[in-house]
């Protein structure tokens, strides 16, 4: 990535490595403030474009995989520009469409992070793993409206400048939850998220349901020095940190769970691989900051290399195979709505918002047995009763109504998988915190597998594979 000119921050010839929260050694490489991801994406995109034998296609939404003789044989897509269905034959497929944090009302996700890869994998017969583990970033931006910036922007500044977290009464509160919150800011992410939401529950939240983040103890010059060009972006949003505090709150940020793969990044469906955030298992019950991009590098390389080595299958797909696949993928649409008595005003987008609220309120940072049961019942109802009554509007060119329908279908499967997995894990571990079972239990030192059987999601447990080397010794060796 260095030779491809990603632009890593460096010290002379060496890529700079810094200590990221939770790590024991300096191993986090970066490009610039909030710019590492875009720089990496730009570099990889540029490299791919140089290879004439790699054909890139944009503007197609993949809606289903085609399985023949128990192995992946291709995919069906919607050409968003024309509304036509298109088909691809393939000896191997790598799912790499990212996470699903959009399922929660408060999130740092882009519009397309609704769990498409996971749902495609499930329908193809692959399994999901550790779906109950969702990471919440404690101080996502909440208010006032801030555009042009990623909502997770405040963290490094709070770290650098000792920004103060205050409750609705203007008082510091992290100490009341067993954390330290002096000028140095050392409190862990989990505790900060927990404390903010507990203050809100007790009626001591900020006006929009979070906490205040204040830099008002600092001089204008100190702020300008630390924030640099960001000060201008804040001013564009009418935010002056010398005069006001901003509101922050936990937001869904990353999903540790995902598609189950083996060490070659292949699922249990032959020829079907996965890489990136849509894969589960690499981060256990919680993720350390700075690990998402290295994960994409390492496992993306493995998945791509192994997919390329798959030998072309003997069975070719006929037009009829594709037609069957399309009618299978769109089957729900070809049937009449299940319940005509439901109000026709319900739309896919309305359903997404309802789902986001259920997930946020019941399957978020603060979970308990009752909330999870309630959410599971409600999501099953949305999936089986409400969703089948929705019909997208007719249209060909860029039919947003149909795209939203395809999205919510996938999101509902993922939401049910998360909820089912969370309700089966009767303990607290990592990002899965149960208020009525606040202890970790050895009985649950296991991975949970979610699969689809005859249209129903089922949960099974799998022994954790233990590593046969000592991580501590390894880290000392490269110091």
């Amino acid at each position, binding site marked *: 990535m260095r030779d491809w000119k990603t632009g890593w921050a460096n010290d002379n010839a060496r890529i700079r490595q810094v200590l990221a929260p939770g790590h024991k050694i300096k191993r986090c490489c970066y490009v610039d403030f909030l710019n590492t991801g875009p720089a990496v994406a730009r570099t990889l995109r540029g490299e791919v474009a140089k290879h004439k034998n790699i054909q890139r296609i944009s503007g197609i939404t993949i809606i289903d995989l085609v399985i023949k003789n128990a192995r992946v044989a291709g995919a069906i897509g919607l050409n968003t520009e024309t509304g036509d269905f298109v088909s691809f034959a393939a000896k191997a497929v790598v799912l790499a469409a990212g996470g699903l944090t959009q399922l929660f009302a408060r999130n740092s996700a882009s519009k397309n992070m609704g769990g498409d890869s996971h749902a495609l994998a499930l329908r193809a017969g692959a399994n999901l793993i550790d779906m109950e583990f969702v990471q919440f970033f404690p101080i996502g931006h909440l208010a006032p409206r801030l555009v042009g910036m990623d909502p997770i922007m405040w963290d490094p500044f709070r770290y650098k400048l000792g920004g103060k977290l205050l409750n609705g009464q203007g008082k510091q509160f992290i100490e009341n939850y067993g954390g330290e919150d002096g000028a140095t800011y050392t409190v862990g992410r989990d505790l900060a998220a927990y404390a903010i939401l507990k203050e809100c529950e007790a009626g001591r939240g900020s*006006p929009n349901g979070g906490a205040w983040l204040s830099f008002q103890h600092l001089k204008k010059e100190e702020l300008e020095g630390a924030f640099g060009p960001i000060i201008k972006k804040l001013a564009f949003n009418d935010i002056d940190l010398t005069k006001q505090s901003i509101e922050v709150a936990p937001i869904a940020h990353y999903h540790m769970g995902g598609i189950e793969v083996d060490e070659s990044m292949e699922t249990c469906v032959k020829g079907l691989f996965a890489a990136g955030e849509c894969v589960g298992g690499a981060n256990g019950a919680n993720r350390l900051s700075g690990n998402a991009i290295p994960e994409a590098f390492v496992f993306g390389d493995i998945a791509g290399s192994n997919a390329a080595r798959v030998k072309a299958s003997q069975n070719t797909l006929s037009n009829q195979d594709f037609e069957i696949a399309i009618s299978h993928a769109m089957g729900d649409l070809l049937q009449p709505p299940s319940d005509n008595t439901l109000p026709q005003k319900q739309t896919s987008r309305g359903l997404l918002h309802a789902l986001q609220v259920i997930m946020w309120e019941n399957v978020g940072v603060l979970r308990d047995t009752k909330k999870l049961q309630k959410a599971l019942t409600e999501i099953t109802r949305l999936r089986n009763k409400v969703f089948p009554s929705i019909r997208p509007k007719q249209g060909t060119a*860029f039919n*947003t109504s149909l795209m939203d329908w395809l999205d919510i279908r996938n999101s509902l499967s993922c939401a049910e998988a998360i909820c089912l997995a969370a309700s089966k894990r009767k303990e607290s571990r990592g990002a899965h915190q149960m208020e009525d079972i606040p202890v970790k239990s050895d009985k649950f030192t296991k991975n949970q597998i979610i699969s689809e059987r005859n249209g129903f999601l089922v949960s099974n447990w799998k022994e954790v594979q233990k590593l046969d080397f000592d991580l501590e010794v390894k880290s000392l060796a490269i110091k």
Partner: protein
Amino acid sequence: MNPGKEKHFNAELEIFRGASEINPRFETFNVPFQQGASVLDALIWINDNIDETLSFRYSCINANACKECMMLIDGKVEYACLKKLQEKRSTLKPLPNKRLIKDLVTDIVPPKEKYSI
């Protein structure tokens, strides 16, 4: 600390709909908004509350990272996610130098990445 009480305003958006062969026209939407909201916020609000078929491109919502929401706002090329809503009438049109697909969506797919049979 500030009081945390945002004032509400109304914006009037005159939006190009359709395409050359799909009934080209302008439609006007009245959108309530809080101080600081973007034009993209208003378009999403219309999708959620009035018309789920209004088409425009966007992905990242906040961060001006995906660069998909470029359009003509009151005659100027702007990112809808960065343009602040104003308490007045604004006109939204698709990019003039790109082939129109529908409403505010134009063909921005790189030529080398076009799907063809």
